[in-house]
């Protein structure tokens, strides 16, 4: 069945040696992403890069990767962009149903179990996404976790990373992280870890997007980074 020619079809032909195929890349490296979440003292921060690409070509420099589920629960999604958007829409739908039935917002631990179940359901035909979940639980205790693409939860007490830049992020966070940081210091640490890691990854970058959440306010900041 011939499909209709789409507006960006000619972009596919511009790729040297590749016409409407994905080359020999890895699915996770098709769009590129970098995500990190860190825990501080009664607060947490979640940060992402802003690039959307099609292999080595950049399509957008303001792509949203961190989504808000409710006022103190955020989910960042790394991986294939189409799957991240679909998964986000499914999760927000499930949360809205939960809110209508229970008349309250979901706790972060419950939401993490929900995401894990949604991903494991597709065990043999998965969504190519790696989520990073961050939220404030009971008594304003920060909660972060990440999963692989089939829902294996990894709860951490310090930081979690995901995306194409994850190897650099592991190294940067491991050396820069300190336990019990206050909000401003946490922001500085997570931003420095993100920017230095994406500088070493071709597929992510073009600035950073950081959400810093304390029990009283949510601060959203856009970082300046190398535009290459």
């Amino acid at each position: 069945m011939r499909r209709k020619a789409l507006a960006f079809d000619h972009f596919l032909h511009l790729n040297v040696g590749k016409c409407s195929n994905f080359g020999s890349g890895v699915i996770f490296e098709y769009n590129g992403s970098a995500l990190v979440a860190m825990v501080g003292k009664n607060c947490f921060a979640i940060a992402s890069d802003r690039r959307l690409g099609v292999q080595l070509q950049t399509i957008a420099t303001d792509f949203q990767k961190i989504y808000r589920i409710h006022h103190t629960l955020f989910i960042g999604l790394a991986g294939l962009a189409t799957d991240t958007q679909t998964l986000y829409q499914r999760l927000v739908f499930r949360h809205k149903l939960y809110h209508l039935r229970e008349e309250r917002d979901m706790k972060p631990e419950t939401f993490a179990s929900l995401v894990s179940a949604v991903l494991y359901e597709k065990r043999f035909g998965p969504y190519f996404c790696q989520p990073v979940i961050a939220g404030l639980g009971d008594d304003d205790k920060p909660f972060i976790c990440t999963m692989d693409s089939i829902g294996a939860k990894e709860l951490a007490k310090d930081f979690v990373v995901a995306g194409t830049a994850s190897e650099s992020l592991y190294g940067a966070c491991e050396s820069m992280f300190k336990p019990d940081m206050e909000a401003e210091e946490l922001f500085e640490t997570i931003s420095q870890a993100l920017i230095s890691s994406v500088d070493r990854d071709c597929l992510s970058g073009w600035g950073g997007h950081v959400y810093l959440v304390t029990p009283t306010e949510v601060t959203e900041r856009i970082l300046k980074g190398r535009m290459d």
Partner: protein
Amino acid sequence: MSRFEESAPARGGFSYDLCKRNEMLMQKGLKPSSYLKTGTTIVGLVFQDGVILGADTRATEGPIVADKNCEKIHYMAPNIYCCGAGTAADTEAVTDMVSSQLKLHRFHTGRESRVVTALTLLKSHLFSYQGHVSAALVLGGVDVTGPHLHTIYPHGSTDTLPFATMGSGSLAAMAIFESKYREGLTRDEGVKLVAEAICSGIFNDLGSGSNVDVCVITKGKREYLRNYMLPNPRTYVSEKGYSFSKKTEVLLTKITPLRELVEVIEGGDAMEE
């Protein structure tokens, strides 16, 4: 009709609706990603009063250590625990599922769960997926019939043994067991032997690492010793930490205050007409 059903919560079991699309992506040249594996050394042994299970705490994603302190000893019932090796999502999902089934069974029968019940539920699930659910388990517990220790392979075969090891570090741990195990060990000797076997896996196998978790199950009591040994502490930590010479440049800041807490006045006469 079918579109709405897709979004509604599913009836349980796996859903295969993305398989066709993923096949198409593979054909076009995209390679699949690697899943979180628990490279692992898991062991179990039977001692005079019950069963001791042990596991390391490293979770790997390819060659990278994703989690330095994960939990591999899963709860099945108050008297039954299960260690899992293989694909992390599979071991977690299969042990959670059988744990729920055991709880329902306990409500139906009003009795303590038996280890062979858990064994049969696990092996029939794994066999029906013909090894594609990649979970290798060491199941141990104490019930009315005594202490039991079993190993379960991803294709659904099982063994009943006095001491067992599974995972990539199983050879290193089995070497320790084969040379030092004897029947009728005391609790302290058993815990020491299990810890030694796990340490052998941690130091000799690249897929296992970090800390040692131990779980001792006896009649009517279980002790979950999380991080029983920490043989790999972080060395050379600088007290002053990392200081940044140049601050990050911020282009835009948006602050959203969260809802203020409302004062609730107790015992007010709001309803008085």
